């Protein structure tokens, strides 16, 4: 009886897989001298459909065999929550000492991961705390990057002077996005923010006189350490020359690594502080019940706008860093995929959890680097990973909510009690 329905379900899944993969995998284009020719790959198709059938059947049977109401997920969650207290300091120490044991490749990956950690922490303020679903976060990343790129190439302003300006401009754009969406929630808000992200990108492509269009901006200056440049000249105003060291390109990577680490930790510190201030609590209250907030005399408008502005500001900082690290930016770096990536980091990490975001960024970005050899299947693997995650831990890696204020010890609220997708 059960087996029959499981078989039927598995067959149905196999049928869906067949429909999906018949063209994607069953057909293969091969370039030859006389042009492209189409080659059939029936065995690959059969293999993948069979895999789906067997996998679905195994999953259904496993779900059936497993006793109902098993306590494993709850224990796992409690364990992860407890481990969280020790994991964070260990990760911090590992991050701080990475330049001591990591090579250039690891540093480069570390810089990339930390950029996304920072973006994730910035977006957590908007999505995790204030509960405003923002699908266009990359817009602020772009504003920050272009602010630095344009200010430094036209007026030769340094990185450290421009960084706050980039943050402020991004915050301003955050407020500009905030005004039209004040009355929107949920799906509608998501659509408008998505459009906003695209508008910024399209403007960057088409405003060629300012942004040089899709050719992007090149020769963006590198950051300096108190005026010391990182180059091979050996001059007294270069880092190597000043400290009488042999020049090595690693020095610049180590410096960039510590810059982004400091910026990310700043983001983390500020959002942790804000959560304990009345403003942060108002964000959380807003996420829970907007009408109740109004009845308590909370100014909903400014509360929402500050969330957008502060979240956007950190996106702008990260953008300025991105521009100075790359030395080159173009609108293509700021497409919707970036927004989606940052949002999935935040959701995967467990909305509102700082450690969760860091872990998710490590898995998503570091994982992408690990799977570099399977570049073609990367998106497939991550799509699969996301689906599996959402089935097994629908509230994210580190779910749960620590009260912002407590008498005596803070007690983490278990993941099971936190609604899905709300944190």
């Amino acid at each position: 009886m059960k087996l029959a329905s499981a078989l039927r379900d598995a067959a149905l899944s196999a049928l869906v897989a067949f429909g999906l993969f018949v063209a994607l995998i069953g057909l293969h284009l091969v370039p030859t001298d006389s042009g492209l020719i189409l080659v059939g790959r029936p065995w690959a198709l059969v293999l993948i459909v069979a895999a789906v059938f067997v996998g679905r059947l195994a999953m259904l049977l496993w779900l059936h065999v497993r006793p109902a109401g098993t306590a494993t997920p709850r224990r796992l969650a409690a364990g992860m929550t407890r481990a969280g207290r020790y994991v964070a300091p260990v990760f911090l120490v590992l991050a701080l000492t990475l330049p001591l044991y990591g090579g250039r490749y690891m540093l480069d990956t570390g810089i990339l991961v930390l950029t996304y950690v920072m973006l994730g922490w910035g977006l957590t303020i908007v999505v995790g705390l204030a509960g405003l679903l923002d699908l266009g976060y990359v817009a602020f990343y772009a504003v920050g990057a272009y602010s630095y790129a344009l200010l430094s190439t036209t007026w030769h302003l340094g990185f450290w002077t421009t960084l706050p300006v980039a943050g402020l401009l991004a915050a301003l754009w955050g407020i500009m996005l905030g005004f039209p969406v004040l009355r929107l929630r949920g799906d509608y808000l998501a659509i408008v923010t998505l459009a906003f992200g695209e508008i910024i990108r399209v403007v960057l492509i088409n405003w060629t006189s300012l942004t040089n269009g899709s050719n992007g901006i090149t020769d963006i200056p590198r950051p300096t350490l108190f005026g010391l440049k990182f180059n091979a000249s050996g001059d007294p105003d270069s880092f190597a020359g000043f400290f009488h060291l042999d020049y090595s390109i690693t020095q610049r990577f180590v410096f960039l690594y510590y810059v982004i680490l400091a910026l990310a930790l700043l983001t983390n510190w500020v959002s942790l502080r804000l959560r304990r201030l009345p403003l942060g609590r108002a964000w959380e209250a807003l996420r829970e019940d907007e009408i109740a907030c109004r009845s308590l005399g909370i100014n909903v408008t400014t509360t929402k706008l500050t969330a957008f502005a502060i979240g956007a500001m950190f996106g702008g900082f990260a953008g300025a860093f991105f521009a100075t690290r790359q030395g080159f930016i173009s609108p293509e770096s700021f497409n919707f995929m970036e927004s989606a990536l940052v949002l999935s980091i935040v959701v995967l990490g467990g909305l509102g959890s700082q450690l969760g975001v860091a872990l998710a960024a490590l898995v998503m970005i570091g994982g992408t680097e690990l799977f570099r050899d399977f570049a073609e299947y990367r998106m497939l693997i991550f799509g699969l990973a996301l689906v599996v995650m959402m089935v097994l831990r629908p509230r994210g890696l580190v779910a749960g909510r620590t009260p912002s204020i407590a008498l005596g010890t803070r007690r983490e609220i278990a993941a099971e009690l936190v609604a899905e997708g709300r944190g």
Partner: protein
Amino acid sequence: MSTLLRLSGVTAFYGAIQALKGVDLEVNEGEIVTLIGANGAGKSTLMMTICGTPRARHGAIVYDGQDITQLPTYQIMRRGLAQSPEGRRIFPRMTVHENLLMGAHGHASGMVGETIEQVFALFPRLKERQAQRGGTLSGGEQQMLAIGRALMSRPRLLLLDEPSLGLAPLVVRQIFGAIRDLNRSTGLTVLLVEQNAFQALRLAHRGYVLVNGAITMAGGGAELLARPEIRAAYLEGGH
């Protein structure tokens, strides 16, 4: 006795639908005034209109001698009014303590500790449950929390929207008792919207009856309670 809140000729609309049709109402300092009426009479709308959402289209709302008709909601709520909204609307994932702190949002922080103790003295149950999440409280406890949260701003006028909604009679008595104690001991002025006409009129000094967006009767609590048409419409027929 001075008038703390006065509504004159207030109308309010939801789109094209008129919810309030020229309401006149007064609440004097130190009074408990109740507004009773059937479902859909406009009781909650009246409460919300005092707070500025929806805004009154005609008429004036004067609080403590100042016209507040056109003020934004958050400014109205900072002038000494506080509301415990319909359906309680506590923050389910925040702790009882955090919920209470939200009530003090935008008010001087110096008194917060003292006020919390006063709320705990009024509702000792909240003190026991202060580390618990709001959503895990029982209905009665949630109502206590909603009232306690409103009291956190140290209001002069407390607006209570159907505190008896969905609660057991014993709990309703407990909560109404707390409102009476509060009024007697601190002189807090209360405007109480209720469907539970019998309990509300027994508690209140004065009462108004709202029918289809207009006040049809007004008078002392005991006096209204004695009227045959009230008994027929809201006491015997309704319950």
